[in-house]
């Protein structure tokens, strides 16, 4: 049964991947500037000193003289083999840069999500157990403040307080350079937003589950309150929380871009921003494709976890 659902989900997953690849390809061709000139290291297109023969040669070499459809098939085929060419601007193999950057981002985001889930679910549980009008307002305000704080601004405030004034943590976020302490501030900055949302979601779905008959049954059976909360209630309350986690991964990536730039972490976001500023089209294409695909895979995984946890759900 699980396999069947998985295959059906995979069936919609593959066209999405192809769509992202198409978008990345179009992106490369819609970006202003002639790649052949870029490859030669010439900025101005109308520059008079250009050797036209040289440009033609490079154009042929890059396959830019072929019809667009053939270029497209060619690009997809190369992408499938992990070949995105060499960067025109900085002379390195694009895939190598991505392979170096991707683990950093995934590591950062994974740690962030874990932190957000632990903190969010705990706060949500606590506020659900001690319910009341004041608790309701506080839970709501916490989540609003968490969602409203701009990630990049929050990161700067954290740096100001904990790196410059208290000197507890380093300013950079590179683990090799500063040790594991370096990740505390980046993770804290990105985790604020999802933690607030998860806390709120946990609280509201816990409150709903706690009003069910089965909780009364469990209580009348004389079970410990902690057992009721953690085993009976949380298990049923966790579904909407997982949905929020799934939705949040996209927002996380957005926040991570700014955080990587601030803490000079060499991740996908930093790679993408540098590529956009440098007009490095090949790196841009590859980064968008890799981010899009990773994001789609994460969503697929979240969907599958969803089914595993609650067998009632059929996608």
């Amino acid at each position, binding site marked *: 049964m699980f396999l069947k659902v998985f295959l059906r989900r995979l069936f*919609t997953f593959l*066209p*999405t991947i192809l*769509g*992202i690849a*198409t*978008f990345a390809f179009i*992106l490369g061709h*819609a*970006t*202003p500037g002639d790649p052949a000139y870029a490859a030669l290291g010439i900025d101005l297109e109308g520059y008079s000193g250009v050797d036209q023969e040289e440009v033609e040669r490079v154009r042929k070499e890059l396959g830019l003289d072929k019809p667009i459809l053939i270029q497209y098939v060619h690009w997809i085929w190369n992408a499938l083999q992990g070949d995105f060419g060499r960067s025109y601007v900085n002379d390195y193999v694009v895939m190598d840069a991505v392979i170096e950057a991707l683990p950093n981002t995934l590591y950062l985001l994974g740690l962030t999500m874990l932190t957000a889930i632990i903190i969010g679910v705990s706060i949500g549980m606590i506020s659900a157990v001690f319910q009341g009008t004041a608790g309701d*307002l506080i839970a*709501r305000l916490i989540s*609003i*403040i968490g*969602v*409203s*704080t*701009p*990630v*990049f*601004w929050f990161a*700067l*405030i954290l*740096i*100001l307080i904990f790196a*410059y004034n208290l000197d507890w943590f380093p300013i950079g976020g590179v683990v090799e350079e500063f040790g594991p302490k370096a990740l505390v501030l980046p993770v804290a900055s990105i985790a604020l937003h999802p933690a607030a949302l998860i806390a709120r979601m946990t609280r509201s779905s816990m409150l709903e589950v706690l009003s069910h008959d089965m909780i009364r049954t469990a209580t009348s059976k004389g079970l410990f309150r902690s057992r009721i909360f953690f085993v009976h209630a949380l298990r049923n309350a966790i579904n909407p929380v997982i*949905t929020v986690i799934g*939705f949040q*991964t*996209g*927002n996380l*990536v*957005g*926040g991570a*871009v*700014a955080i990587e*730039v*601030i803490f000079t972490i060499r991740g996908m976001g930093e790679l*993408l*921003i540098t590529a*956009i*500023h440098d007009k490095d089209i090949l790196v*841009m294409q590859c980064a*968008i494709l890799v*981010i*899009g695909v990773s*994001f*789609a895979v994460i*969503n697929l995984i979240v969907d599958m976890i969803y089914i595993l946890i609650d067998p009632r759900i059929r996608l």
Partner: protein
Amino acid sequence: MKSKIKYQNNANNFNFSSNETWSSFIKSLKLFFSKKLNIFSFSLVIFLIFIAIFAPFLSPHQYDMVNPSNALAPPSLEHLMGTDTTGRDIFSRALHGTTTSLSLALTTIIFGLITGVSLGAIAGYFVGIVDEIIMRIVDVFMSIPGVILALAMVAILGPEPIYLILALSIRRIIQFARVTRGVVLSIKELDYISACHALGMSHLRIIFIHVLPNCIGPIIVLSTVLIGNVILMESTLSFLGLGIQEPTPSWGTMIAKGNEFLTFAPWVSVAPGIFLFTTMIAFNLFGDGIRDHLDPKDKVTT
């Protein structure tokens, strides 16, 4: 069944087709403002709009007046939030930033709303191949994180304000399209739509006059919830140097500028951030209130 309940629910709050439209609207407003938090967030939103409109009259200095001899001056009575690297008054610039942010966000939402609702209505009404194509494209764009998508668009088009609006609205178009499509799908199976067909009405008339008014509730909810989102995304792009460009005042750019001087001039980053934070709080609280009011059961996810 669920969709029917939702439809009736919205009809209670937004019944534009009945004779008592006005009185039910007033009743709905009264209910909304019976909550203190809603009054607070609404006043804050109005206050921010006031600032956005009257920024030139409210700011003590000209926002682009350069004074290098007074660069990076700390907050004082003369310069409430200090000055930046070229000696410009940060308070005045932050006030003007409100104009930039709000006008950009509003334009983005309106553009996204019109395009998205039309696409969603077409997709939901003419199920089949059109729907399939539109929804596949939507799926693709949904699977690219919002900021990344906007960054890619800005990379192609350049950071002109008009292109920035386009880049920011792509994601909104999709969100509006999805919500509209969902409502249209559930409405068009109802009997009164069949009656419209039997009367020989044109598709356009049925869509715009008889189907779309049912979407007003969810669309209002989505637009208010999304405003904060758009403001945040715009400031993120500006922070990364790919949004609003100098000398136009924008909170994101101002915060980015202060990054280098955080040790000895923290106000350059902190001050505009307070504006941004307050705006986010105002619109998020307001959006939340509207959502709880109009759409208490189904949460429109952002």
